[in-house]
C-alpha cells in the first residue's frame, strides 16, 4: 500500500507543471497584447510626428502699391481688398525668372500655400508703412513641398510617378541652397480650424468642438446619472416590478450600439424638437444619452459598495434617509462615481458614429465660439481627414489621433488622481 505522502508526491510534479503552463499562457497573452499595442502606437506616432513640423518658404516680396491696385487709397478697407495674390505671384516670378508655359507657371505659384496672400494682407494691414518696400517674408509651403522636405517623396522614382516633377525639384534644390526653406514647429496645427489645404488645416476647431460637446455632456449626464443612481439605489422600493424593469433597461441601454443613439437624436432632438444640426449642443445631448447608462451603472456599484454600517450609524443618530444619503453615503461613494463619470466621458470623447447621424461630420472651417455654432469633434475630424487622399492629410490624421489619445490618457489619469485624492480624504 502506498502512503498518502507518496501519492501526493507522485502528483506534485504534474501539478507544478500545470501551474507553470498556465503562467506561460497568461504571460504570452499579455506579451501579444503589448506587442499589438506597441505596433499601433509606433505606427501612429511615426506617421503622425512629421505633422508637428511644417515647411516654410522665404520669399523677397516687393510690396508694390501699383500691383496691389491701391489707387493711392490707404484706408483699412482698401488695404483689405487689395490684390495681394498678384504681389505674391510676381515675387515668385522674380525669384525664378524665365519660367515659361502655363503648366510651369501654375506649378511655380503652387510652391507656396494659398494662405500666403492672406498672411501678406494681415502683415500689410498691421504695418501699412511697408508698402512700396521690399520685405523678406516666410510663407507656408504647399503640402507637396512640405511632404518632400519630410522625405515623403522619393527622388529616385521615375518622374511620371512623382507628385513633384524634375523642374519643381530643381526649384526646391535652389531654394534649399539659398536657405529659403525651413522646417518649423507646426503651430498652425493647433491654432487653425479645418481647411481643404492640408498645410493650413488644424485641429483647433475640432478640439473646441469636442470641448464644448463634452461640457454639454458633463453638465447633463453627471447630475442626471448620479441622481438616477442615488434614487434607484437608496430610495426606490426593492423587489418592485417597475424598478426591476427600469434596471434591466438601463443595463440593456449600456450595450446598445452607439449609432442607434445617433438615430434617436436625429429623430427626437432634430426631427421633433428642431434643434439645429452640427452644433455641440445636439452632440452633447446625444452623447449624454449614450453615457447615462455607464454613469448610472458605475455610480450604483459605488453606492452599493458603501458599507451598510455607515448608513446604520447615521440613521441610528436620527438622520433622515436623505441626510444619511447625502451626508455619508454619497461622499463615501464619490471616488467611484467620479471614476465612472470620467470613464463615461472618455468614451464619449472618442465617439464618432452617433455624431455622424446628427451632422457633425460636415466640413467646418471656422472655430466654434459657443455650443450653438456648427462644429465638429476630434474623432470625426480624424475620420474626415482619413478620407482625404493627400499625403499631408495622412500625417495630420495620425497627429490628430495622437492628440486624441493624449487627451484620453489625461482624462484617465485625472480619474486615478481624483480617486486617490478622495480616498485620502476619507
Amino acid at each position, binding site marked *: 500500500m502506498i502512503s498518502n505522502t507518496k501519492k501526493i508526491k507522485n502528483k506534485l510534479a504534474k501539478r507544478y507543471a500545470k501551474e507553470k503552463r498556465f503562467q506561460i499562457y497568461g504571460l504570452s497573452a499579455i506579451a501579444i497584447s503589448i506587442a499589438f499595442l506597441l505596433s499601433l502606437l509606433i505606427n501612429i506616432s511615426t506617421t503622425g510626428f512629421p505633422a508637428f513640423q511644417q515647411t516654410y518658404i522665404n520669399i523677397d516680396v516687393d510690396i508694390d502699391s501699383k500691383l496691389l491696385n491701391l489707387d493711392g487709397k490707404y484706408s483699412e478697407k482698401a488695404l483689405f481688398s487689395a490684390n495681394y495674390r498678384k504681389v505674391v505671384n510676381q515675387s515668385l516670378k522674380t525669384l525664378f525668372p524665365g519660367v515659361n508655359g502655363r503648366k510651369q507657371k501654375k506649378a511655380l505659384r503652387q510652391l507656396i500655400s494659398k494662405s500666403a496672400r492672406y498672411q501678406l494682407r494681415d502683415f500689410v494691414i498691421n504695418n501699412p508703412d511697408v508698402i512700396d518696400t521690399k520685405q523678406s517674408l516666410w510663407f507656408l509651403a504647399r503640402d507637396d513641398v512640405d511632404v518632400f522636405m519630410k522625405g515623403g517623396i522619393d527622388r529616385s522614382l521615375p518622374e511620371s510617378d512623382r507628385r513633384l516633377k524634375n523642374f519643381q525639384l530643381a526649384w526646391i534644390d535652389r531654394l534649399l541652397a539659398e536657405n529659403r526653406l525651413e522646417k518649423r514647429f507646426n503651430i498652425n496645427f493647433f491654432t487653425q480650424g479645418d481647411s481643404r489645404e492640408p498645410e493650413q488645416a488644424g485641429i483647433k476647431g475640432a478640439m473646441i468642438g469636442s470641448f464644448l460637446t463634452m461640457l454639454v455632456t458633463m453638465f447633463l449626464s453627471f447630475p442626471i446619472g448620479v441622481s438616477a443612481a442615488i434614487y434607484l439605489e437608496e430610495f426606490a*422600493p426593492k423587489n418592485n416590478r417597475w424598478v426591476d424593469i427600469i434596471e434591466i433597461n438601463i443595463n440593456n441601454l449600456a450595450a446598445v450600439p452607439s449609432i442607434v443613439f445617433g438615430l434617436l437624436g436625429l429623430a427626437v432632438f432634430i426631427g421633433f424638437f428642431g434643434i439645429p444640426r452640427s452644433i455641440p449642443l445636439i452632440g452633447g445631448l446625444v452623447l449624454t444619452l449614450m453615457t447615462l447608462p455607464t454613469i448610472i451603472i458605475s455610480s450604483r456599484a459605488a453606492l452599493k459598495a458603501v458599507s451598510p454600517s*455607515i448608513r*446604520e450609524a447615521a440613521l441610528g443618530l436620527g438622520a433622515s434617509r436623505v441626510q444619511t444619503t447625502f451626508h455619508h453615503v454619497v461622499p463615501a461613494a464619490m471616488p467611484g462615481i467620479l471614476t465612472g463619470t470620467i470613464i463615461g466621458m472618455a468614451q464619449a470623447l472618442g465617439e464618432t458614429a452617433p455624431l455622424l447621424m446628427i451632422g457633425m461630420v460636415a466640413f467646418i472651417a471656422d472655430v466654434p465660439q459657443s455650443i450653438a455654432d456648427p462644429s465638429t469633434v476630434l474623432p470625426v475630424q480624424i475620420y474626415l481627414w482619413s478620407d482625404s487622399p493627400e499625403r499631408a492629410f495622412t500625417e495630420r490624421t495620425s497627429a490628430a489621433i495622437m492628440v486624441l489619445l493624449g487627451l484620453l490618457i489625461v482624462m484617465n489619469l485625472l480619474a486615478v488622481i481624483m480617486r486617490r485624492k478622495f480616498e485620502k480624504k476619507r
Partner: protein
Amino acid sequence: MINIEKREEFDIEIDKTVGKPFINDAKFSTRNVDVFYGEKQAIFDANIDIGKNQIIAMIGSSGCGKSTFLRCLNRMNDTIQDCHISGDIRLDDEDIYQKQQDPVLLRARVGMVFQKPNPFPKSIYDNVAYGAKLHGLASSKIELDELVEKSLIRAGLFKEVKDSLHKPGTSLSGGQQQRLCIARTIAIDPEVILMDEPTSALDPIATAVIEELMIDLSKKYTIAIVTHSMQQAARVSQRTAYFHLGYVVEVNDTNIVFTNPEHQLTENYITGRFG
C-alpha cells in the same frame, strides 16, 4: 453531542415568559410583539419591561432574535424591506409605532451603538458633532466645542484624543472607535441607549473599559445591551432576558437568572450545556 442535545431542547415547551418580565414605572414596555421577516417569524409574542436607569442584558444563542428585538426599540427595522412588526412597544407610555411617531425623533431619544465600531469617515470632532449639528442642539461654535468635549470626556476618550480631534475617526484603535461611537451617541443626549454586542469586536482590555463606561452611563441613561458574553451580562446588568428561537424564555434580576434560573432552557444555556 451538541446536536443530539439541541434536538432535546425542541421538546421543552415555551408557554409564557417566566420570571419577572414586568416591573413598575418602566421606561420601555413591549407587549405581544411579533416580528416577521417576510414569511419567517423572528420574534414570538415578546413581553418585556425595561426599567429606568437600568441596564438590561439580552442573552441567547445566535439567531434567537435578541438583536431583532433591540432594533425594534428604535425602529431601525423600518429600513429592512419585508420586516413587519405587530404588538405594542411603548416608550414612556407612548406607542412608538403609532402613525404620528416620527422615527427621526425616536432615534434622537433612543440612541444605538453597533456591534462593529462604525465611525464616520470624518474627523473625531465631526463624528461627535454630527448628531448635534443634525438636530441643531448647539447654537454656536463654542457651544458645539463644549458639547464635543463633554461627550468625549463622558465616553472616557477625551484624554486620548484631545490633541488629535481633527484626525479621522477611522484612525483610532477598535476600542477607541467604539468609545467614539458611544460619545457620538451621548452627544445628542438620548434617554435610552441600545447596544448591539458593543464589545464583541474588541479585546478584553477595551471591553473592560467599555463595561465600566456602561455602568457609569446607566446612572443617567437606560441601557439595553445584547451580548454573547454571559460574564459581561452578569458584570454590568441589573436584569437579564434570555431569548431562545424567537421566544423570550425568562426575564429576571441578573443574579437570579444566573444563580437560580426558573426555566430549564435558561439553565442549560448559562451552564454551557447548550448554545
